[in-house]
Each structure stands twice: as C-alpha cells, then as structure tokens.
C-alpha cells in the first residue's frame, strides 16, 4: 500500500507559509455515538448529574485552552471559544435536556443529542446567514459535552510525543490554535480556503498549512511520511530521498531569505540617490491587515472588497460595509487605505447577484459598469466607505473605468451619497480622495482627460496587459503572450504616468507587475509615486529599491522604449541585474545545506 503512495503529490491551497516534514497524524471526523437507553425513573437524577458534570468538565476544558492561548499571546481564536462558552452557559439548553431525561426516561447522551439536533434545525431555518452558521457552533458544543459524557478522549494535541503533521477533514480554529504549544509541525485539511477561519489562525500563528486538499484525510494513513509545502500548497506523501533533499533545500532557502529580509521590513523606501517610492499593500481580506505592519507596508494601496460579497445569499448592507472599512481605517492609521469598490462579474463569481451568463464576461457587465446599472447596491458600499472616512484616512477608487462618462457618473453618485449623509447629520471626510483604476486601454489612452477629474490613478496591470495584448491569461495556449515588458504595454503605462503627473496627481501601480523586482528599475525610471503589492513581497522590493539609482533609470527607460520586443527588454534588464545591479539584487543566503548560496531577488508572490 505504502508503495502505491510513493511520491504521491496532492495539490491544495497554500494557507500558511513554511515547509515541514514529519509523520502523518490522521484525524477522522465522525459524530460520536449517542445510543438510546431507557432508564428507570429513580435513575433520572443520576443522569441529570452526569449531564451537569459533563457540561462543567467541558467548560473547564475550554477555559483551560483559553488560558493557555492567553499565555502564548494567541488570542485570535478567543471569539470562537467565547461563543462556545456562552452556549455552554445557556441554562435553557440544559433544562431542556433535563426535562427530556425526566419525561421520557432516557439516558443523558440521547437526550443531549436530541436537544442539540433540535437547535441545529432551528438555526438551519434562519434566513440570516451569520446566525445560521451559529448552528455549527451548537453542534461543536454538543460534541464536546457528549465526549465528556461517554468518556471519549478527543485526539488531544498535547499528548502527542513526536513531531507530527496533522491530517484531517477539517479543523476548528481552537484546535488550530492549540498546535502552537504542541509538537505539531503543520496541518493539511480536506476543506477550507485561504479565508477560512482555520487558515487565518494558522497564518497568524505561523503554523504551515495546506487546505482544500479534498481527499487528503483518506489518501494519507497514520504514520506515513509527509512533506507539507505551505508555500506552494502541496502535500507529498512517502517522498523518496531525492524529493526530501529537494524540499530540504527549498526550506533552507526560504528560511534564510526570510531572515535576511527582516532588515527590509521597515521604511524608508528610497533609492540610493533619494528617490522615494511609496510601497503599500494589497489586501484581499481585513485579517491580512497585520501584515501591513509586519512587512512595513506604507499604507494599503488596494483593498479588494469582493470577498464581502462572495459565498453568501444576501448582499452586504451599508452597515456591514461601514464596520469593515472603519476597522480598516483604524488599523492602518496613521497611514491611508485605498478602498476599491467591488469588481464583480467577469471572472469573479457571485452567488447572490444572479448575473446571467455572458459570452465574454471579461468584457461584460462588471465592476463600475455593473455599479452604475445597480446604483442601490453601489450606493450601499459608497455610503459605508464615506462613513468610515470619518475614522481614518480612507480613499475611494473605481475599477474598470473605460471613459470619462463613467467617471462623471460615479462621481455624481458619490456626491449624492455625500448630500444624503449631510442631511442625515452623519460625519464623513468631505475631501475624500477619489481615484480610478487604469486597466482598460481606452482609459489609458485618454488619461489626460481623466486626470482632470480624479485625485489619483492606479494602474491595474493584470487587466491592462490582457486587454492591450488581447490574451486570456488563464488560457494556457496563449498565456505565453502575457508579457508585462511588451513595448506596447510599457508605452501605455508610461503615457499614463506622464498624463497623471502633468495634472499633478499621484500615479500608482497595483497589479502583479508592481511586486516583481525585475520590473522595478523600469517603474522607478518612469517615476511612479506608489507601488502596491502583496505585503510579503515588500521587503524584497524595498531591498532592491535601496540598491538602485533613479537618475540612471530615467534615461534607461528611454532606451527601453526604443526596443522592439519584450524579449529584448527582458534580456537587457537581466543583463543589468547580473552586472551593474549585482548588489541591489543579490542576496547572500549563507549556509544553505552545502555551504552558501546566492540568490537573485525575483518575484515571490504567487
């Protein structure tokens, strides 16, 4: 059996960075058995007593976990533990169980299971999605108490003697947190996404994790040797010697790189000759805000708001928007945060907007186009953003603008929302900076006109390149044509920067191109004001920036603009990296396995 799984590679979602290897510790999720047993009337008080003791034991256990987490400064999962404690203290719940024991003369386990099932049903039928999910908490609480009743010992992480990698269908956030003070190296789960609670807790605690592996808990057996690659989201089962050596090197490189880059996790972001470039973070979800500080991001250059809309049945209301953005504003203070209004439609999926399928979603009704057609949905977000602007430095940005009319129409709605709030006496920043994404060629070519109407531009290279070169990035047959250094792309980007600067407004770039160190000299030479990228790539980009000279790069860009192909430009840049910019790009990793390795800074975001 083990032979069949030799070098078995299972791909999932990288939830938390790091590479670890160890024996698998497989947990399977089955509901604990609760068998019905009739009891004589005189035994009822005894069953009630057993129930009460089980509840008390479960409460004590949770309190214990909480204390331990507190000691380790890991308070992220408190919200969920507190919610469970609150449920355990719900007298009404236990009275119902007692009543069932006394009236139907059944054992505590059976009565408990019935009451829990009843409440899960009640919550299942609610229309509020958030409240409906609380049914899951009721289930977990019920299982914890049932475990006490039947004397079931959950595989307890603190009992594990050897370092292991936990493999499970799913893990609760509190289980994840307990790994911090156990011998667990990392974990792999069948379900989950980058934004599930367990993934967020793993990242905040620095435990390597891969989720969304679909079947891993059935493919791996207890004791299998497993390599967990939380960088690329891969699990390797029963790796051979070569594979082990490969990952050992990968891990050593990763560790050494992180250590070195710590030195660059604080501003300033400046070239040798004093050219300042603001390096800010792109955020997918609010919980990533801690990385702004960790990697020394100078504000948030792009806060994507799509996640607020995904995987739910009802649209977020104004208050939800407000709450979310207020937290962002407060967390990023004294820096600023650019909130992009939602870019839905296109390649992004939305369960509740029920958009009709389109032939060409990337060219269809999406982003600002959709917003202008559904002003009520748009306005809920705009009002939320405006209200949050009273709590910190918030800027608003409209995506997928293709021409002036859209800017004017979006501004009209913004103004309307401001007037409404004024009438309602609600505070907001009436001078809130307003910008647009420049990602449609039509907008790039008319940047001069657009610049007069906005406070900043942010170039979205992912889309811009796709539309300028007419290639579908996800189509593997044409993806080789996706060339950020294509002369047409560079020409268009340069034009946008110049148009913005002529009008005296800030020009930023927030696409993937901004986080690739190879492109940095070009962007500095074009005199960008701000680059926004995954927070963890900031230290590397900053390191390279500090080794460059802006005065040399401006003429270099002029040279590049005369070249004819992306390949020529790329070779030119790579040659410079090798020769003239060695110090800027090279990192001496020192003792990686066989004594010393030098690497060239290149893109780390995936």
């Amino acid at each position, binding site marked *: 059996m083990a032979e069949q799984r030799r070098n078995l590679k299972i791909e999932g979602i990288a939830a938390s960075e790091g590479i670890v290897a160890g024996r698998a510790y497989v947990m399977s999720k089955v509901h604990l058995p609760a068998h019905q047993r009739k009891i004589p009337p005189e035994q009822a008080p005894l069953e009630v007593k057993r129930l009460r003791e089980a509840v008390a034991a479960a409460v004590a256990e949770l309190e214990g976990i909480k204390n331990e987490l507190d000691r380790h400064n890991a308070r992220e999962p408190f919200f969920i533990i507190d*919610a469970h404690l*609150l*449920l355990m*203290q*719900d*007298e*009404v*719940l236990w009275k119902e169980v007692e009543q069932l024991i006394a009236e139907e003369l059944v054992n505590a386990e059976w009565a408990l299971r019935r009451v829990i099932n009843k*409440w899960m049903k*009640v*919550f299942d039928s*609610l*229309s*509020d999605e*958030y*409240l409906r999910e*609380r049914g899951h908490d*009721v289930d977990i609480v019920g299982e914890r108490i049932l475990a006490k009743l039947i004397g079931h010992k959950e595989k307890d992480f603190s009992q594990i003697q050897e370092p292991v990698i936990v493999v499970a269908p799913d893990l609760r956030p509190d289980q994840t947190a307990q790994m911090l003070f156990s011998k667990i190296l990392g974990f792999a789960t069948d379900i989950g996404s980058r934004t599930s609670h367990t993934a967020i807790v793993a990242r905040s605690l620095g435990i390597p994790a891969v989720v969304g592996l679909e079947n891993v808990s059935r493919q791996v057996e207890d004791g299998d040797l497993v390599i967990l690659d939380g960088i690329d989201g891969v699990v390797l089962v029963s790796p051979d010697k070569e594979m082990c050596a490969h990952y050992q090197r990968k891990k050593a490189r990763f560790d050494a790189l992180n250590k070195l880059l710590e030195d660059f996790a604080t501003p300033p972001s400046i070239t040798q000759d004093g050219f300042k470039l603001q390096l800010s973070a792109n955020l997918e979800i609010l919980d990533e805000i801690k990385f702004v500080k960790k990697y020394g991001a100078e504000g948030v250059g792009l806060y994507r708001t799509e996640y607020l809309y995904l995987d739910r049945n009802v649209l977020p209301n104004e*208050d939800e928007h407000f*709450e979310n953005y207020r937290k962002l504003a407060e967390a990023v203070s004294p820096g600023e945060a650019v909130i992009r209004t939602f870019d839905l439609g296109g390649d992004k999926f939305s369960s509740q907007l029920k958009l009709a399928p389109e032939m060409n979603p990337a060219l269809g009704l999406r982003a600002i186009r959709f917003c202008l057609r559904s002003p009520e949905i748009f306005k809920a977000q705009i009002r939320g953003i405006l209200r949050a602007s009273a709590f910190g430095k918030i800027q608003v940005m409209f995506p997928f603008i293709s021409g002036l009319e859209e800017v004017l129409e979006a501004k009209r709605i913004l103004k309307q929302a401001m007037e409404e709030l004024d009438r309602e006496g609600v505070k907001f920043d009436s001078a809130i900076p307003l910008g647009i994404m420049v990602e449609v060629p039509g907008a790039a070519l008319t940047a001069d006109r657009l610049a007069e109407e906005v406070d900043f531009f942010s170039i979205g290279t992912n889309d811009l390149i796709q539309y300028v070169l007419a290639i579908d990035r996800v189509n593997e047959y044409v993806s080789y044509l996706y060339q950020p250094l294509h002369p047409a792309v560079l020409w268009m980007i340069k034009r946008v920067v110049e148009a913005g600067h002529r009008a005296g407004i800030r020009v930023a770039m927030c696409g993937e191109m901004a986080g690739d160190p190879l492109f940095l000299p070009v962007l500095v030479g074009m005199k960008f004001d701000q680059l926004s990228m995954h927070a963890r790539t900031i230290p590397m980009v900053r390191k390279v920036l500090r080794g460059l000279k802006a005065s040399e790069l401006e003429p270099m860009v002029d040279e590049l603009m005369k070249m004819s192909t992306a390949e020529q430009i790329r070779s030119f840049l790579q040659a410079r990296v090798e020769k003239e910019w060695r110090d800027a790009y090279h990192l001496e990793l020192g003792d990686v396995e066989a004594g010393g390795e030098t690497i060239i800074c290149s893109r780390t975001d995936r």
Partner: protein
Amino acid sequence: MRTHLREIERTAKICNRLGLHARAAGKLRNLAAQYQCMIKLVKGRLEVDAKSILGIMALEAAKGAELIIRAWGEDSEQAVAAICRLIADKFGEEE
C-alpha cells in the same frame, strides 16, 4: 401559576444596526440573568427565554423588529425596564 406573580409586559423596537446578533444577544442574556423573574421575548409567533443566548439568536430580530418583553416575578418591573433601556441604548454599540 403565573397569575399571582407580578406580570409586566412592554414592547420595544430593535434600533441598533446589527440587530440581535451574537454580541447584542449576549449582552441581553447577561442582563436578563441578573434578575430572578422569568423573562420571555416574543417576536411574532416565536416566544423564547431571555436568559438563553440560543433563544435570543433564534428570534432573528433585525433592526426595526418589534419585541414584546414579558416578565413574571418579584423584580419583573426592574428587569423589563432594564432590558428596554439596553435595547433603546442600541446595546451600547456606537452608531
């Protein structure tokens, strides 16, 4: 049984943004638990115990929902007054 206890009934409108979500529900439950009397919350055809977090959440009372608060017992008057105050104060959540 209930008749010879002091019964109090009042109506209140939920006016905080999030309605009776977990946090507000927890506050209401903790307040109710400080009183000896029996307290029920009624919304439409649903009646739940105000000392049960589960019950309160299951009411699914959003902003604008009308609740009847009913209490029997020695301190029922104080209890109902305190609960109405908490609801009117938007559960101490800032607007």
